[in-house]
């Protein structure tokens, strides 16, 4: 698999305060990179930096073939906004000269029916809204999908559905996925690589290499790592669906 992203010594500061420091990682085509860490660890800042949305120092090298699709964290949509996801997808298609037929294709892939597409955005449930945002990102056929806390505004059962959807779309469209999350569900199920961040890089690598007891303690404190450690090391692997139902949550 060829490399699609290489990050070297990435540091981001705002107003003189360093938010993340010294991040090194690389992502290959088809990887699922989970960026994990506690709240306020700088995960979203990392994502925004690799999207070139915030100033940074260090090197971020995307392969020339990389086409990025971005799903931001929850958007505070005005409940009365008379805009629906059909308006938004059509607007993006026109702005980017994307063939109109692609909208229907993406709608089907993401499972957005006509009713959801035509409901004002402020009236959608958290899960429906998130699927709308994923469809928006997929329009234009990116080969890298970047998601910032895609389950932040969704209940537990909806979370599983969103992760499954992301995994299914990754297979269907042959994408690389970079996903920021403060919980570990995605890591256990689908991640092929983990970047653990807590203001600085704690660990990076395959889940079983990156999620050492030491790394988990640095991320979540000594009282919480035990559960995660056992979960990772006492199962047959992170991709076995039988292991997930008993997962205790965040």
């Amino acid at each position, binding site marked *: 698999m060829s490399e699609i992203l290489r990050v070297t010594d990435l540091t981001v500061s705002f107003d003189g305060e360093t938010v993340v420091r010294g991040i090194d990682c690389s992502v290959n085509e088809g990887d699922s990179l989970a960026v994990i860490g506690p709240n306020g660890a700088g995960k979203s800042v990392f994502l925004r930096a690799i*999207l070139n*949305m915030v100033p940074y120092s260090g090197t971020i090298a995307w392969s020339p073939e990389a086409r*990025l699709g*971005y799903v*931001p964290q929850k*958007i505070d*949509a*005005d409940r*009365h*906004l*008379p*805009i*629906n996801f059909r*308006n*938004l997808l*059509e*607007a*993006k298609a*026109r*702005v*980017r000269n994307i063939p109109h037929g692609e909208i229907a294709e993406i709608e089907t892939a993401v499972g957005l029916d006509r009713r959801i597409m*035509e409901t*004002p*955005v402020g009236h959608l449930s958290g899960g429906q809204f998130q699927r709308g*945002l994923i469809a*928006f*990102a997929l329009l234009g056929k990116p080969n890298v999908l970047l998601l910032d806390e895609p389950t932040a505004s969704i209940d537990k059962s909806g979370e599983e559905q969103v992760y499954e959807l992301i995994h299914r779309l990754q297979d269907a469209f042959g994408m690389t996925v970079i996903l920021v999350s403060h919980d570990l569900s995605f890591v256990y199920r689908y991640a092929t690589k983990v970047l653990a961040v807590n203001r600085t890089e704690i660990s990076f690598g395959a889940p079983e290499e990156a999620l050492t007891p030491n790394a988990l303690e640095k991320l979540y404190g000594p009282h919480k790592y035990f559960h995660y450690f056992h979960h990772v090391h006492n199962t047959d692997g992170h991709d076995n669906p039988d292991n997930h139902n008993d997962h205790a949550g965040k």
Partner: protein
Amino acid sequence: MDTITPITITTMPANELYGIILPLFGAAAAGLVGAFALMKRTILAGDVMSHIAIPGLGLAIIWRIDPLIGGGLTLFAGIILIWMLQRKTELSAEAAIGVLFASSVALGALLINSTEALVDALFGGFGAISLDQFIFGVAVSIFIVVALWVLRNKLILGLFSPELARSAGVNVDAINLWFLLLFGLAIIVSLRFLGALLVGSLIIIPASAARQLTHTLGKFLIVSAVLAVAAVAVGFWIASVYNLEPGATVVVTAAGFFVLSLFKKKD
């Protein structure tokens, strides 16, 4: 043979006709600008932004130039300033506009030291419209409508989420500046007959009523423009029948539409 009843045709002087047709064009532009401003949550800016024209109106009176040129100049200087303040200091648009508003009204009142001219500046008037001014006003109104149509996709993405718009390749700063300029142009077109105090209401009220009545984007935009045009048409008609001040009657009519819209139950 029946007797033929003689018909008397009264012709309206051309500049009076201009004074009716131009506000209708201006209203369509104001209604559309208002719909986007409402969605962008910068609707109050309309009410306040027009006041930035007041010092310019004062200067125009002093220099004896067309008041709209003077008003337009200070308005556009204000727009550029608002845009820069928004970008550089993360001040909300409302706060930036608020600062400009208070200083503009005070400066305008100092510059316009004739009570009659001040009343015209605030409530509309400034005499009859020439053919040139009519053509200019209609052209600007059409330009606003066309520009909003062309920019609508970028505007929609930007008002939904600037971050998402950027990720789709939209230059959000440029779109915001475009929108402020179109907003300013919409104010200029209607400034003559509504005045600086009332012109914002033609942007705010029809859009607010349209939002009560509709919940899809296309209908919202159309209803907003139609209500603004209807407010001007009905307002002028009521004003002529009862011999009232046209500008104020238009605004009261628009407010009446808004009150009626409140009776419609939203889904």
